[in-house]
């Protein structure tokens, strides 16, 4: 079976999260591997969040501002 990575994204409400919404409105498609946590700003990101994500076995972590 092909390896399907599990990716966790932290997206800024005003930028990447909004961009992701607009990608939806425009019906662009992209791989269904990511799961999203909405934050208000990438400034909210604490290094512990990324470490925690790998600790629960994320294969990749995407921070989008």
């Amino acid at each position, binding site marked *: 079976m092909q390896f399907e*990575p599990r990716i966790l994204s932290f997206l800024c409400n005003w930028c990447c999260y909004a961009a992701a919404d607009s990608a939806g409105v425009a019906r662009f498609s992209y791989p269904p591997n990511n799961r999203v946590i909405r934050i208000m700003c990438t400034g909210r990101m604490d*290094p512990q969040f990324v470490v925690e994500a790998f*600790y629960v076995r994320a*294969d990749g972590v*995407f921070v989008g*501002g």
Partner: protein
Amino acid sequence: MGECHYQSGNYEALVMAETVRRILDTVGINRERFTIDWASAAEGPRFVKLLTEFTEKIKTMGPLGEAEGLDWETLKFRLEAARNLCKNMQFRAQYGNLAKEIKKLGDYSPENISQAIEKKLVPQIRKRIFEAELKELIAQGPQAVEVLREKTGATEEEIGAILETLKKKEKK
């Protein structure tokens, strides 16, 4: 960049990102598994591109640990030390103060951030993570240096130095 809704929030994120990369280096996770990028509210297509490319990259890289040649047990062991590092008050204060310093000087170029972190934070990251790991390992009984190296990913010198200080502390 700089078009952040929160003015400078995303600059702080750059410091965070570089710190994270160094932690990943220390625990032996390919730093490419972590990425930070930007797309404005109007840039749906850009978001799609970024995420698609990242997904592809991770796909070719393979599962966490496996690609790094680390079994999950070892990786988990190291990540536990990293988790503790991130919660450690002294380390967080060092991290916070570094962010403060960079903001004061206003130079958020990747080179500057990287240099500052290399100098001020990396020794702390390595020392604290390895120390925590070694303590844990030694508590399980005497271990060969080979094993210690394998489990922690630290160099022989680093292990030697840490063991030295641990001994001193014990004597006290």
